[in-house]
């Protein structure tokens, strides 16, 4: 048929060179005759040659470049300069369900991040590469370590219950959010981001929070194989420690006489001065200052042989927490091979990542293999991808007392403890000071023991496959069918070794009341296996017709998916922090060092969880384009979900949007040299969302605490009330926007305003236990979200000498307000002290404050003790998600150098420094040294005098040391620890040098590039936050802005990258 077509047409030959904006020739650019399958690709020097029918139009497309159409006319040579896609406005973008549409036709806001932008910071997790790239997108690193937690949100926290994270689609297949961590960013062609509900409406209920559409590479188009090899070496160091004091030694409120009968005998309180003495076995640090006193030159209590660990009694330059961590080393090797032409291609990508963490002995590996390809047989074509990855992490676990993390143990170690001393590292030697029986800290264990004996190990195998088939059944009808599956198998194992102590240590000879040494501890192990599966199939019928000036496209489709999981857990002993003390466990391991649950005594804990969810959906999508400058688009979808009770389980999703490219339409603008592109757009949609887990339509019972006892068991009602009448949430979104381009699009700008009504928000509200439940899952709230998003891209400098400067910035303002709550409630709790409060921004930090004089707002202190007291009521003290997010990207190319900087700012929110509250208890924070540990007048306080509050000028706190910082009501008021979370961050700076031009004579090496980059370069915070990165958060959920000692200090990474192309 193709032959027949060619035979009856006149043909001509056309050739030319394709160059990029920098003047260099571009290989691998597809050159296609518009409306036909005739195509070729440029060769290594950017040249092409093609036989074409008369009066053809050539379309030039290539990764990273804006598509360009050129009418050939009678010319035989057509040279083209392509514009880099960072400035594209007419580009084709991937929209919902993988449908490719021209950006100009879209009535809603989208963004596309190219492979090059994504890999600028050479991230291990795809999501990290998105930081600072897109307005309205907030990517947070919530913890670090060898398996950093990453949270992605588009347009902020709109839904109170659901995790507010976008739907992730990889080549059309919906995958779990954590699947992103298993993908190799180098395999990705582009990430298309549909920010709002309107853009995502076609996905139905899963996509109210927007969608991230990941498209992977399918091979090259130029007929020549290309092989790329990249080696990355990264060094990582702890960068931002909390402000820790090194001035004061150990004391924790002890009383009594210690070490009686030894040369070290002392009273906890000095009988002559009345001041406290140094307690060498303490975790708390409220003792005398380090003054070199030789009498205090030791840590811990005397051992059985009377020996004592001698350490000078002087201020150390670094606290144990700073000494303990090491330089992390990450090695990444990527090899990819692309072959193929316009019809058939394939891609093979291999990656290995090996990580050694900053925490000693923490390691992780990831190996991934991706195979993708495309084949075309006339009207029929298909493409496929198959991705396998293996991920392994091995990290230190909790200690054997209460599951404390190593970091917290270090923060509970007196400053003068030489934690890296070989004496302490050698815990195996029964005679060393590091041995469990001899270790100096009476309340926390030797972290070196923990590193070697308490581990959490996770392995996962992840398989994802998608097959897309496509039949151009007629010029007006395209039928495509897609089937895909994602399967993950996770095997988790945590263990903690047994430890035994000498009878001497257990007998507590010095009255330290040591918690870790009061008895032998048996081993523990916890095993988990989880199997996740998702299978999906989609069918689309696409009808296209041109009615004179109107282009019409109608898509009809059906979708079906099923996701399921099954998990099994079994454990003996306690290995996780929530598992209680090891002593209280019903069972334990019997062979030290053997972590097979088969060898246990007592009753093991076992658990099982199965879940399955199904969805059926049908939809229609219509696009009308008038003369390529006016577009109208609408869609409708109906879903049936198994998550809700029959009768409530179906819902409609629909939307309309329009765009007007006025620059094509208004004659005066059309020929303007300054103004090159202008579009206004608007969208309206109503979408639904089901934010509940499977089986939450009926109330259930748990096994009562402590049961079974032998053959006797008991049930107790689960704390959550599940309302069977719950309906899906509804989001009504209105969005308007404008996109402008100037000076041949060297300067482009976009702005979007959106307004969302979020109705029937479905979430478990925390209740008073007096209701009979601790929470209820109900349609509980209505919120309004508004936001502004601005994007600017510019090329301030583009010179013939090869100096190019690309600059882009994005800024967003996002606010969600709670309008009303279920049952007229004024407020509901959502965890981590965050609340939804009517009339206020969501979410709010809701904590107790100190009692204050209502007239002046000053803190009231007790006239006798000088101490403040905590209020019994709670108050809202600020929102916990950023109101303002600013991202800045700069890229400078000069000759062979490329220099990039990514920076961002997040502000207008607070966070709760819960770990600082705990460090005040231990006396490790610099905060506790504010008054030199002396009694003081509480700043700006008032005191009751003759029935009136008067400024306090003479009532000193009765204790300015441990009595104030650790034990007064000051610490009970959460508001004392809520701080401004604003921060400027320079996320990435990189410099690379391209050796390719120097190698032009080399036959085999086609490209060589060397890059040095630094991630998390600098962070600027307000003075009051001397603790940590406000982005770090206790858990990946909506309760935000809450920092604990389970998050490690932020790190900084230096990477060196070598890329070779063959």
């Amino acid at each position: 048929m193709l032959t027949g077509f060619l035979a009856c047409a006149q043909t001509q030959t056309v050739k030319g060179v394709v160059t990029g904006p920098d003047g260099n020739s571009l290989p691998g650019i597809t050159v296609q005759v518009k409306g036909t399958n005739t195509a070729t690709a440029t060769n290594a020097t950017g040249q092409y040659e093609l036989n074409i029918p008369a009066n053809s139009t050539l379309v030039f497309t290539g990764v990273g470049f804006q598509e360009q159409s050129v009418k050939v006319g009678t010319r035989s040579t057509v040279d083209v300069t392509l514009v880099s896609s960072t400035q594209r406005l007419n580009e084709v973008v991937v929209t919902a369900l993988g449908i490719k549409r021209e950006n100009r036709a879209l009535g809603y806001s989208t963004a596309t991040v190219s492979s090059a932008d994504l890999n600028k910071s050479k991230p291990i997790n795809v999501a990290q590469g998105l930081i600072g790239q897109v307005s309205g997108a907030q990517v947070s690193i919530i913890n670090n370590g060898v398996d950093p937690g990453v949270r992605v949100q588009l347009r902020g926290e709109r839904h109170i219950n659901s995790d507010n994270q976008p739907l992730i689609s990889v080549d059309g297949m919906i995958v779990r959010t954590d699947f992103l961590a298993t993908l190799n960013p180098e395999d990705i062609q582009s990430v298309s981001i549909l920010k709002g509900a309107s853009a995502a409406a076609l996905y139905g209920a899963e996509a109210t929070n927007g969608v991230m559409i990941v498209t992977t590479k399918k091979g090259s188009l130029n007929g020549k194989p290309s092989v790329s090899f990249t080696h990355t070496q990264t060094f990582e160091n702890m960068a931002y420690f909390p402000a820790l004091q090194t001035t004061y030694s150990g004391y924790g409120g002890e009383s009594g006489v210690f070490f009686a009968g030894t040369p070290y005998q002392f009273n906890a309180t000095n009988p002559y001065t009345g001041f406290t003495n140094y307690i060498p076995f303490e975790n708390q640090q409220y003792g005398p200052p380090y003054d070199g006193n030789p009498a205090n030159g030791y840590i811990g209590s005397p051992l059985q042989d009377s020996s004592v660990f001698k350490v000078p009694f002087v201020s150390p330059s670094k606290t144990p927490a700073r000494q303990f961590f090491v330089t992390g080393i990450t090695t990444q090797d990527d090899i990819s091979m692309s072959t193929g032409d316009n019809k058939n291609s394939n891609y093979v990508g291999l990656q290995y990542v090996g990580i050694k963490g900053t925490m000693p002995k923490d390691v992780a590996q990831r190996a991934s293999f991706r195979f993708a390809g495309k084949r075309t047989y006339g009207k029929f074509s298909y493409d496929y991808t198959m991705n396998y990855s293996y991920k392994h992490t091995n990290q230190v676990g909790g200690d054997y007392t209460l599951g404390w993390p190593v970091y917290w143990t270090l923060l509970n170690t007196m400053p003068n403890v030489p934690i890296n001393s070989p004496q302490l590292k050698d815990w195996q030697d029964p005679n060393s000071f590091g041995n469990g029986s001899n270790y100096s800290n009476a309340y926390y264990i030797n972290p070196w023991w923990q590193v070697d004996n308490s581990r959490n190990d996770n392995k996962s195998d992840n398989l994802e496959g998608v097959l897309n088939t496509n039949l151009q059944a007629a010029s007006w009808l395209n039928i495509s069918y897609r089937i895909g599956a994602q399967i993950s198998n996770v095997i988790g194992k945590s263990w903690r070794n047994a430890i035994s102590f000498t009878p001497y240590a257990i007998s507590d000879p010095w009255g330290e009341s040591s918690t870790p040494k009061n008895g032998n501890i048996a081993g523990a192990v916890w095993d988990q296996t989880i199997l996740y599966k998702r299978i999906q199939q989609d069918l689309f019928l696409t009808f296209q017709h041109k009615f004179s000036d109107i282009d019409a496209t109608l898509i009809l489709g059906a979708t079906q998916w099923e996701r399921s999981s099954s998990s099994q857990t079994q454990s003996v002993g306690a290995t996780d922090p929530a598992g209680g003390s090891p002593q209280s466990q019903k069972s334990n391991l019997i062979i030290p060092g053997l972590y097979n649950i088969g060898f246990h005594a007592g009753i093991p804990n076992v658990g099982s969880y199965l879940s399955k969810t199904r969805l059926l959906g049908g939809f229609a999508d219509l696009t009308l384009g008038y003369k390529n400058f006016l577009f109208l688009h609408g869609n409708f979808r109906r879903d049936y979900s198994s998550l809700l009770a029959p009768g409530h389980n179906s819902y409609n999703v629909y939307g309309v949007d329009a765009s007007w490219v006025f620059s094509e339409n208004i004659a005066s603008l059309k020929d303007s040299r300054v103004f090159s592109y202008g579009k206004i757009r608007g969208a309206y949609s109503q979408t639904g969302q089901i934010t509940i887990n499977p089986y939450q339509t009926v109330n259930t019972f748990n096994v009562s605490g402590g049961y079974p006892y032998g053959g006797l068991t008991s049930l107790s009602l689960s704390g959550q009330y599940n309302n069977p009448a719950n309906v899906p949430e509804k989001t009504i979104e209105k969005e308007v926007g404008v996109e402008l381009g100037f000076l041949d699009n060297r300067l482009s700008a976009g702005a979007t305003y959106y307004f969302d009504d979020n109705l029937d928000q479905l979430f478990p509200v925390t209740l008073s236990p007096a209701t009979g439940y601790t929470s209820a899952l109900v349609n509980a709230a209505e919120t309004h979200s508004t936001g502004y998003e601005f994007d600017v891209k510019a090329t301030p400098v583009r010179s013939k000498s090869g100096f190019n400067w690309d600059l882009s910035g994005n800024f967003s303002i996002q606010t969600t307000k709670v309008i009303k709550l279920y049952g007229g409630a004024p407020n509901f709790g959502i965890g981590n002290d965050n609340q939804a409060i009517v009339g206020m921004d969501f979410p709010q930090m809701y904590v107790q404050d100190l009692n204050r004089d209502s007239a002046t707002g000053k803190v009231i202190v007790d006239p006798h003790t000088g101490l403040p007291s905590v209020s019994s009521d709670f108050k809202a003290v600020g929102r916990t998600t950023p109101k303002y997010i600013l991202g800045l990207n700069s890229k400078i190319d000069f000759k062979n150098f490329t220099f990039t900087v990514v920076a961002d700012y997040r502000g207008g929110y607070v966070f709760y420094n819960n770990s600082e509250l705990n460090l005040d208890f231990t006396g490790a924070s610099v905060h506790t040294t504010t008054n030199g540990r002396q009694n003081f007048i509480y700043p700006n306080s008032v005191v009751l005098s003759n029935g009136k509050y008067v400024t306090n000028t003479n009532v000193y706190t009765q204790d300015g040391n441990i009595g104030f910082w650790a034990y007064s009501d000051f610490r009970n008021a959460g508001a004392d620890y809520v701080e401004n979370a604003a921060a400027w961050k320079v996320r990435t700076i990189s410099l690379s040098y391209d050796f390719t031009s120097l190698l032009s004579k080399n036959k085999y090496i086609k490209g060589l590039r060397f890059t040095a980059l630094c991630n998390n370069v600098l962070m600027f915070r307000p003075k009051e936050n001397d603790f940590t990165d406000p982005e770090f958060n206790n858990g990946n959920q909506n309760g935000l802005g809450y920092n604990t000692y389970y998050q490690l200090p932020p790190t900084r990474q230096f990477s060196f990258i070598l890329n070779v192309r063959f």
Partner: protein
Amino acid sequence: MKKIIFLFLIAGILVTAGCKKGYLTELQNNPNAPTTSAATVQLVLPGTLTDLVGVVNGTGPYQNIAVFLGYWNYAGGYSFNNSVQNYVMTNSSPEVWANYYGILTNLNVIHQQASASPTLVNYVAISNILEALCYKNLVDAYNDIPYSEALKGSGDLFPKYDKGSDVYDSLVASLDASMASIQANISNATAVTPTSNDDIMFGGNMHDWLLFANTIKLKLLVQQSAVSAKQSYIKTEAGSTASVGYLDHDALVNPGYTAAQPSPMYGQFGVAPSGGVNGDFNYIREGGYVIDFYKNTNDPRLGYFAGINGTQPNDPGGSSNDYYSFSLPLNKANYNGDYQGIQTTPTANSSGIGPGIVQSPVQSAVMMTAAESYFVQAEAVVRGYITGDAEQLYHAGITASFEYLNVGNSPDTYAQAYYSQSNVANVTWPSSMDAQIQAILTQKWAALNSINVYESWNDWRRTFNPSINSGYPIIPLSKSPSLSPSITHMPFRLYYPASEPEYNKTSWLAAGGDQVNPFTSKIFWMP
């Protein structure tokens, strides 16, 4: 060919998606947890009993109060417990709200399931009786509490608070109804009787439940002894069921405790399954005041409530250990403890919680002692609420306490020798009414050490002022050097927990929750 493939695929999607009946609805069945229909009353009851006894006889929520009442203190060498030593009360500690309402939730499940079936009348009665105990303890801690609107789930997410006195009156009426129901059905063959597989307290003996109910009712009435306006009500109500009788043996709960799943008190102070004594044993010590009392009254129970200085229950029955092995008469010098506010005597020189309390991992947990029942009866007789022999009941109370501890393996003999001492204040039965009440309450305090701390706090709060009627054993104020001079007595009540201002604010404010001061706000029955 390709078209055939497509037709096949389209057919496939339609078949799998559309035609399978129940494709969505079959996933409504939860494969992970039972629902209400599977939760029979027999399956729910045991857990409510162990949970309730864990609070009543447990130690967590009442640790502070045990120190306030002179029972316990902390070992020197540990951080000075500023909160407890200075009576620091917060909305998170001490706190029993969530515990009791959690138990009430499950009692409510039993109540509803049983009410739906005429054969389960006994379970209705049992749930009512246990509910009365929970609500009484809540009123005694917080005064006004959600009652009439409580436990309604989504029907009322913001239950209002009812007056403590109204709750009390309602509980008395509910107990009357429960007792009448038990009496009416005790020989009704169709009424399902619990068995020892679900009633792990009385083994299905409904007569025991009857006595238990009447004892709780008497406690409710005697607790209001200082409310002058209610004296005739108390007398009428007490008299109306006096013939039923009262608990005459310890009400003990035991689901089958083992070394690996020990009794709550043993779990906190005993030996862990992996060896080694629990940390709380070394930290929490027997208090100075209660040790003084036993010493000063020549009370052999000293050796059961307190351990010999520095000994540990490491090796029950082992030769190297003198925790369980001592002989009467005691060497009083072996027992030592600090007064509240002083925390200098280290573990090695002080007494731990004794072998009569930390007996063995399989020991039963105590819901109510017979001793308490007798002392409440004795007080009711002295106050004229019921008739009887107060002195005999008083001696029975002391004897029951000795029996619980099995003093010298011959508790009755030792008890008689103890209460027969002449002219020992608060031991010898006195002649004046005030002195009798003081002796009863003092002996009750001595008997409930570490067993039911809460009841002793109740007694102190209704009788602490000797000028009103009688007196409670004088427990001096904390000797903590940092105690604020503004504090002149131990707390009167608990703060409402943080959950209330956070999640039920309107009702909390209406009940004056923001005005609560634990040192001045009183429970309605306080003088």
